[in-house]
Every structure is written in structure tokens, then in C-alpha cells.
């Protein structure tokens, strides 16, 4: 018993329709996302809210990555692009000591990003725990701060080693500017 020709045609069209919608979601949406510009200018020297309670003053010349920035109420992240260096700040409402928060960030860098050669460095400005890591051929720098034992701020910068070395002072100054919103 064969499938009636009308039914077969309808089945074929329906199947192609399903396939088209899946392709549109799996490939079309990402393509559209890539086609839209992701960088936004941010006002130089002005604090940018990462959450309702935490702000950061971006490095000079930084542009906001709108596709990855999500400033929420008590959880949020802001991603800035400074030349070829990516500077990300992640805020989470966790009750951790600075040491525990730094250990957590190192594990996240290793497990989540595949970072290697993760080293703890000397304490940075504003009581931040800092360190360095490698991400493939890129260099990386991180800083961890804890506010009122209730908000953990992870700041990471990664990019070509030479670019990172040039921009690191500005990025460290930006990390030091992370503060509670007034």
C-alpha cells in the first residue's frame, strides 16, 4: 500500500517547512546576530552600571559589547572591547571571602574557558586579588573583589600579549574603579 500522492506532497512540503524553521533558528538567528553591530560607545570617564548596585568606569577608548553585556538587578555582566583586548566584569550575589572568590574564578577560568598557567599575583588596588593566566596564544589578567561580603566581582581581561601589556594599566585602573553605586 503506497502513500497517496497528495498526502506525499503535503508530507514533503510539511517536512521541508519543519526543516526550514529549524535551519532558521539554528543558523539564521546566529547569522542575523552576527550581522548586527555589537559595539556601542560608552561615555568616557562615566561609571557604567553592571548591576543596580555595582558600577565601573570603563578604560579610555573602550566600547561596550552589547551582545554580551547584561546589566541586571543583582546579577550582571559588562563586556568592554579595548582595541583587541576583551575586558569583562561579572557580578554575582554570593557570600564568599576574597580568597574563596579568587579560587572560584581560577577554577572557572580553567574549566570554563580552558585557561592555563593560572597564577595568583600580588594584591592589587582597592584590595583586589589579582593574577594572570593564558588563553591559547592570548594573555590574561584577572582581579577579584568582594563588596560587603555579599557581592563578588570578577574582572578578567584577555587579548594578544603585547596589546594586553600596553592596556593593562588602564584596565587595572578601571578594575580599581569598580564601586558600589551611590
Amino acid at each position, binding site marked *: *500500500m*503506497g*502513500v497517496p500522492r497528495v498526502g*506525499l506532497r503535503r*508530507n*514533503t512540503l*510539511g*517536512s*521541508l517547512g*519543519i*526543516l526550514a*524553521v*529549524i535551519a532558521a*533558528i*539554528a543558523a539564521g*538567528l*546566529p547569522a*542575523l*546576530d552576527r550581522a*548586527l*553591530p*555589537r559595539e556601542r560607545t560608552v561615555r568616557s570617564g562615566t561609571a557604567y552600571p553592571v548591576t543596580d548596585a555595582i558600577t565601573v568606569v570603563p578604560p579610555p577608548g573602550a566600547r*561596550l559589547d*552589547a*551582545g*554580551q*553585556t*547584561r*546589566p*541586571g*538587578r543583582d546579577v*550582571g555582566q*559588562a563586556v568592554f572591547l579595548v582595541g583587541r583586548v576583551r575586558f569583562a566584569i561579572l557580578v554575582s550575589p554570593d557570600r564568599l571571602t576574597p580568597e574563596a572568590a579568587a*579560587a*572560584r*574564578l*581560577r*577554577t*572557572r577560568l580553567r*574549566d*570554563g574557558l580552558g585557561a592555563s598557567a593560572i597564577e595568583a599575583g600580588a594584591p592589587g588596588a582597592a584590595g583586589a586579588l589579582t593574577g594572570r593566566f593564558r588563553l591559547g596564544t592570548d594573555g590574561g589578567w584577572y582581579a577579584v573583589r568582594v563588596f560587603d561580603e555579599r557581592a563578588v566581582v570578577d574582572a578578567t581581561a584577555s587579548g594578544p600579549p603585547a596589546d594586553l601589556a600596553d592596556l593593562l594599566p588602564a584596565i587595572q585602573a578601571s578594575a580599581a574603579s569598580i564601586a558600589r553605586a551611590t
Partner: protein
Amino acid sequence: MTPQRTRAARVAPVRPQPLAGDLFGSVRTPVFWLLVGLLTVGAARLGGMVAPPFARYPVAMTVAFVLFALYAVPFVLFIAHVDRLEREPPVLLATAFAWGAVVVTVTAVPGNLAAESIVAKLVSPRFAALWGSALAGPTVEEILKFLGVVAIAMLATSQVNSVVDGMVYGAMVGLGYQVMENVSYAAVAVQEAGAGDRLEPVFTTFVVRGILGGPWSHTVFTALAGAGVGYAVVRVDRSARVRAAVAGAGLGGAWLCHFAWNSPLLADGLGVGVAGRLAALVVKGAPVLALVLGLAWLARRREDAYYAGVLSALGDPWIVTPAELRAMCSLGGRAALRRAAYSRAGAAGERAARRLQESQARLAVELSRGIAAASGRGGAAEEGRLTPAAVDRAREVLRARHALAALTLPTADRRPFAGSVVMWLIGAWVTVGSALGLALMLRALT
């Protein structure tokens, strides 16, 4: 034999079709190969997605898989129980589950990320942080899950005989996705904890997403969408435009429920802490669950009435008595008859009554297929001609009837009426879930 055409039968809430060559015949349809292709490619991609967390956190990920697989069991039992008269083929239920777990998961991950990013770029990152998941999640996921129900309906149209069937397949698609999404959330939680291969994030995910958020999640949303697909397939008496509109309304309803669930409304629990947040979960979720259960109850009542009409048309009290017909169409009526059998003949009586009810259901379905296969409006049963398969089913009923009648003496090993295994399992699940939820709440409050 005088056919009794009930209102339910006139408006055809059920559209049974002959089984002949159905599932095997579907191999010749394009949608079969589409499903094979998408499930194969999806499984390979899913393997690539879960392999890295499995390699990093083998214990946590194994526990997450086992925990959420066990979590799915009472859902599956309940879903199968909803359609108790005309059970769906396990292979189709498994296909629906696999669509949700595999195709929806691997497609939704890039789709959701891209959609949220687009929202952030077109509106603002702040708006995306608040409303991104409420807009992107339902739009991407509900469409993908809906397509799964459509694909099942195209693969085996004769198995979608009622609105209830559409809800059953929709629920299975949603459950598949719900399970895999929860496993992926557990993996992310383990990684975010930054403490290595630890189980605490898995258990926290299980309580928060599985127990507190699970009862009114994807399974329920897609059941609603599936109801629309079921209507579109069954109600051939309506115009294509009306059927498409109802299917679209089902999808729209699922989208709206999902949107409300993901939205930041009430996210702060009205400012009264954890208790308020838990209350917000109930406020957001319970109406959706009640809506879908109510819809399933209504659809099942109509389906029950249809099948009762089919049995009634035989006019044979050995096949079905008036009391049994009434029980078929009432909430808890069948269980009441089993309780009565238990009171007369103990556990053996209850089992015999259950067998009788199951054989009657099988006969009703078989009779309705005979009606559908027969030419003309009357049909085989109504004209007194039963198909060979229906004759076999009728003999089953008579055997079950005699077995029940033979058990007239009370037995010595009488125990309290046990109810159905399904309801016991679901009850246990609810009890454990409530206890875990309460423990979590107390821990958070103290």
C-alpha cells in the same frame, strides 16, 4: 443494536483511524526520514555538547543524568495515564521525548543565545537582561517543541485521534526538553560553583528547577500547544483556516505561559524574601498547570463519552453495563468500581476489575477503528458487523467479565485498597518534592 449518538460523537472529538500499515507505512514518508536525520545529527551534536562537562565533572554529571531520568518517570506515568483508554504506541512517545531532548536542545542553545543578543543589540543590554529570556526562550523553544508535535502528527496521523492525544505527544516533547535543559543547567551550576566535581550544585538545581519549577514547566506548556495540534488533526469537520487558527492559538498560549514564567514580574517575591519568591513561583505556575489539567480533563471527558457511546451501541450488558458506562464518563468512576470489586473480592477482585476495564477500553478503540474503516456513516459496529480484531477484543472482555464474576467470595489476604501504582508513584514524588522544597526554603530562611 441501536446506536446511541451522543453529542460528543456528533461533534467527533475522536477521529479513530485504522492501524493498517500505519507505523511501518510511515517509513515511506519524507517526515520519517526528516526525523531520522534530525535525531541522528542532533544526537551527535548533543554528544559533543555534553562530553566536555562529563569529562570534567564525571560524578556530578552522572548523578545529574540519573536524577533527572528518574525525575521523568512519574511524569511519563502520569502522561500515559491521562490517555488511559487509547494508549499511544511507546515508539511514538519515545520519538516525541527524543525530539524534545535532542532536536530542541541542540537547536535552542544557539537560537536562544542569538535571540537574546539580538534583543540586546536592537533594544538595550539592560532590557535584554530583564526581558531577554522572557522573549527569546518562548519564541525559540515553543516553536521548536511545537514542530515536534507537528512532526509526530505527520508521521502517524492515525495515532492522533483526539485532542488528548495531541496533549500527550506535546507533553512528551516538552518533558524531553525539560529533562535535558535541567541537566544542562546542572552542568552550568557545577561549573559556576567553581569547586570541581561536586554534587551540591546538582542537588540545588534539582530542587529549584526540577521540584519547585518542574510541575509547571515545558511539559505543561507543550501539552497546551499539542492540544491545538490535536484539534487541527481531529476536527476535519472544521475549515482548514479554523483548524490552523486553533493550532496557532495553542502555540500562542504556550508562548504566553512560557513568557509569563520567564518574565521578571514577581521575580523579587514582592520584596518579602525567599518565602515571597516561592509564592511567586506558585502564582506564576499554578494557573498554567490548572489550565492545562482542566483542558485535559475536558478533552478526556469528551473522548470518554465518545468511546462509551461506541460500547453502548453494542447494547450488550455482558460487554458493558450501564453502571460501567457511567463510570467511564465520570471522574474517579472507574476507580470507584475497582474499589467496589475490592470490597467484594479483595485484591484479586480489584485486579480482575482493572483487567475488565482495560479490555473494555481496548474493545472501544478497536470498535471505533472499525467504524472509521467501514464505508458509509453507519460503520461496522453499528451494523452489527464486527471486525475480526474487534471480535478478539470482545472475547477478551467476556473472559475478564467471567473472571470477575467468579471472584465473588472475599479473600483472606484483604488489604486496604491500594489505588493505582501510578497515583502512588506520583504521590511519592510530590511528597519527596515537597519535603525537599520545604527543606530548601527553611535553609534559605535560617
